[in-house]
Each structure stands twice: as C-alpha cells, then as structure tokens.
C-alpha cells in the first residue's frame, strides 16, 4: 500500500518449490480461472502456507511456473498486507488498531505485545515463535478489541489475556 512502497525482496538462501501435494493444489487452482494471472493471489497464499513468507526464490519459482514477470509479482506482494516478503515467525498475530478496537485499547495491546515479546512490526521473536502485525479493521468490531491468531479471531481481549494466549502458542 502507499505507506509501504516496493521493498527489495529478501533471499532465504535455499531454493523453493511446491511439494507434490501443493503442486496438485496449484493445478486445481488454475482450473478455476479463465487465465493464469487470475490465480496469482491464491497461488501466493499457497506458497505462504508452505513457506510462511515469500523470499526471492519463491518469487522466481512462481514467475517461472506461471510465466508472470517477477516485477509484477513483487508489485502485488508489496500491495497487500498479508503477503510477506520478509521472514515471519511460525505464528502470525494480527492486532486490530482501527476505530472500535482502538476505543477499547487495541493500540495499547499492540504496543504492549511488542514490548512484552521485545520485537517490532513483523519481526519474528528471537525464538521464531511469533510475528506481530497491526492491522486495519479486521471486520469483527463486536469483539473489540480483537486480534487474529493465525487464522482464528479472538476477542475481546486485554493485554494480560493476549499475552497469555500468545505464550501458549507452540
């Protein structure tokens, strides 16, 4: 998005390719669309399911596989908040900082979590367990303040409850 800009991509220092299972999923995805390009978002989601983030090697792989120029893929990655071109931890935690959640302390929870886990936006904790990301409205304002832990919504939470939930993560 505008506040991000296109960032240079990062290497993970090892090649990427889909597992046989995900390659089959990729083939199935293509059947849903009338052109290959339309499958780009679902394919990038699939890469992240396998690899958590999108290193240079994955971008090169997808570019080769789908015949889409790398720059176009990078452009797409930089536009969407849920595509990561930097390494992220094995648990992704989204904290809502929009209107209703902020009214009930969402921002204090986000700052408190950063402090407790001694980390910053997206930077994995030293044990590689958690990446924190503040997010715009998560669409669950009745749970304010809410957060997403991996794919599940949790809320309302306070900082103590949030820390406890994150400490329980593997």
């Amino acid at each position: 998005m505008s506040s991000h800009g296109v960032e240079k991509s990062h290497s993970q220092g090892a090649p990427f390719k889909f597992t046989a299972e995900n390659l089959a999923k990729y083939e199935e995805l293509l059947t849903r669309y009338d052109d290959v390009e339309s499958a780009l978002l679902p394919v990038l989601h699939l890469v992240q399911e396998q690899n958590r983030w999108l290193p240079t090697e994955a971008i090169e792989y997808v570019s080769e596989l789908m015949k889409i120029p790398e720059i176009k893929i990078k452009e797409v990655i930089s536009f969407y908040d849920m595509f990561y071109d930097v390494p992220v931890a094995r648990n992704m935690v989204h904290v809502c900082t929009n209107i209703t959640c902020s009214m009930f302390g969402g921002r204090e929870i986000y700052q408190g979590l950063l402090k407790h886990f001694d980390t910053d936006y997206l930077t994995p904790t030293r044990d590689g367990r958690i990446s924190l990301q503040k997010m715009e409205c998560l669409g669950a304002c009745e749970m304010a303040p809410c957060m997403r832990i991996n794919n599940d919504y949790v809320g309302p939470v306070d900082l103590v409850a949030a820390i406890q939930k994150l400490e329980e993560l593997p």
Partner: protein
Amino acid sequence: MDKIMEKDTANYKDYTLLSYHHIPGVHNIDVFERAGGYEMMKKWVGAEPETIKEEVKQSGLRGRGGAGFPTGVKWGFFTKDRAAKKYLLCNADESEPGTFKDRFLVEKNPHILIEGMIISAWALGTQKGYIYIRGEFYQQAVILEKALKEAYAKGYLGKNIMGKGFDFDLYVHRGAGAYICGEETGMISSLEGKKGQPKLKPPFPAIKGYRGLPTMVNNVESLAAVPWIMRFGAAEYKKFGTEKSAGTKLFSISGDVNKPGVIEVPLGTTLKEIIEVHCGGMRNGNKLKAVIPGGSSSPVLNADDSYAVKMDYEDVASKGSMLGSGAIVVIDETRNMGDILKYTLEFYHHESCGQCTPCREGTGWMESIFKRRESGKAQKSDIELLDKTAASMRGQTICALADAAAMPTQGMIKFFRPELETYVTTNVNSNKR
C-alpha cells in the same frame, strides 16, 4: 453476537436474511434444505430470467455494500445476450471499519448466499462466479468452500444444473489485506491477479469488467436477499422498510453499547431503538456523544441527530451522512473525537492505493496533522487546514476513497471543531498510539 439472535428467535418470521438463523446447523446443506433452502433455486432456475430480474427490480432492493444503488436497475445494465461470456462477482471483501454483517451471514448461513447467487446467475446468464472474500476471513472462506462442495455434490452447481441445461461454476477467491479491493473495480483488478487499483468508470463493470468482459458485482447481503424475494414476492418485501428504502437491512453495531452485534431490522428503524432496544442501551449508562452511522466513511452524527434519525437511505442522508453498509459505531461522552478522527485518517492513508495524487497525498497530509500533535507542533489553525485539505480532495479521484476520507473529516469538524482544536494542541505523550 448470538445473544441478540437468541432473544428474537420467536420472531424469526420477521426476518428475511436471518430467517434461518434460529435453526441449529443450518450451515449444513441437509439442514438448510429441510428448512426450505434451495427450494427457490429449484423453482426459478429454468424459469423466464426477465421475470426474476423484474421481481428483484420491483422489490426495491438496494445494493447493501454501501452505495445503495438499486440492484434490479444495476442488473438492467447487464447484457441480455445469454451466450456471451460474463461473470457474477460477489463482494465479500467486507473491510469498511465498523462493518461485520457479511462475515456473520457467511459464517451462519453460507447456503443462503449460494442459493441467491445461483438464482442471480441464472437470471443474468452468467456461467462463472466468484465470491471475493477478504483475506483475513480465512475460516469464513473455509466455510464457504465446504458449502460449495456440498452444493456441487447435489448438482446445484457445475454443468447442466438439475438437468436444466444451465452451467454455473462458483469459486471462493481470497483477498490478501487491502480495503480498496472492496471497491468493485479494485476488486476486479485484484481478481485479475494485480494490485487492487480501481479503474475509471465508465465503462462500468456490467459492460466491461473482469478480463474486459461483462461482470455483475453485488454485495453478499444483496445476493442473499434474492431467495426471500423470489419466495414471497416483491410486494411482501416492500412491506418492510420505507417507500424508497425497501426491505430489511443488517446492521453491525459496535462501540459503547451493552450488546454489540449484528441485527436485522426493517429500514427506517430509528437509531434510538437500535441502540436502546436491540443493543441493550449505552455501556455503563453513559451519555451518547456521537454515532458513525454507516461505516468509517460516513460523516458522524451528533447526539441530537443520532436520536432523531431513522436508519434508511433518505433519512440518514437528510442529516448530512449516509447509511453506507449499515456499520454503526456508537461513541459515548467519555471519548475524545480527536482520537476517533486520528484512527480514521491513519486508516485512509494506509489504504489509499496510491494511484491518484489528491488521495495519496491528501490522506497523508491529513494524517500528518495528527503526527504533528505528537511532537507538539500542531496549531489550532490546523483544523481549518484539515477542513480545506479534505474539501480539495473531494470528487478529484478515480474511486471514492478520497471522498471516504474527506467526508467524515469534514463531518467531524462541523460538529466538534473546538474539541478537535483543543485535541491537536494538547501535547500528550503518544501513549494512545
């Protein structure tokens, strides 16, 4: 959220969209069908398409995503050439701050949407459809995928549906975290595998949309209303609501009320009733200060207007705001409006797609006034500057995001100028961030 529904279960016949919600397990196709689900699809697929379109038009159903454009009229712009390749796109990219009604509908009853889409697809003659759902709604996408699988297994989707010679494939497409993809042309760009940047209209998507082909984009709630309308008819639907705002509407209410959640009430229900009856009144018995009536892009109403307004398209507009997606954020006397505006402006700056200068720069300038506050450099006159900046952004861009940032800003200044002037010039250590 469920509590609101449980309370009203006895009166479920008063609902259109939530009329199945009292039935446990209605997200399963068998339970849904036992309750009468898919009956309308069976009745209407194969029937005269123009009859369906006319019924939807007569019902007065207006687009429930925010714009409120009559759905039947929009359908009327679509090509009648049934052989032409075209698409039906369901907008489930619910991202307007304050809105969570579509999430609720999809979670509880995915099949009502799918049934509505199959009937609509038949009426419009589309061969393929996508439900574009925001990336954060992962579990909801899983629920939809499962429901689609069930519908395919029954022969309600795919080739030659129910032996009626109609082919319709329907898929879930997940976004990846970008508010602008809820704008219909932004959504189309995103579906095409690009950045979700809106396109100039005209041409409208109904003429030239996804992959340059005719594409009908409708909100979840609009499409989910179709089976009820086709069951009971336009005349019955119009018994709900007001003359120009027909039917019922889902409202998602959050903020300083005792029971936030999703409700379905006839359009024209007073905001006072919504707050006091459906949401259990103000939290801690606090006094109402203001209400954002239709999502973050709708101008705020002060307490007097909030208690006077009826929640339909016309009455909310008469108070200088808009019904939008029906996202009501209730704000009590303990809140500072400066905080609310700051959250709003940070949001729009973050979500501007960057294509148009007035929006890309304007949202940034507006946000920067609140940044200056944190370093103690903001002045009282900055609120006037904010008002002027907002005014200069309006109507200057490809899509409505600039207006969506400018309108609530100007609305806030209209009612709360002195409070905002004090806010920006009070140097608080930024512990509110």
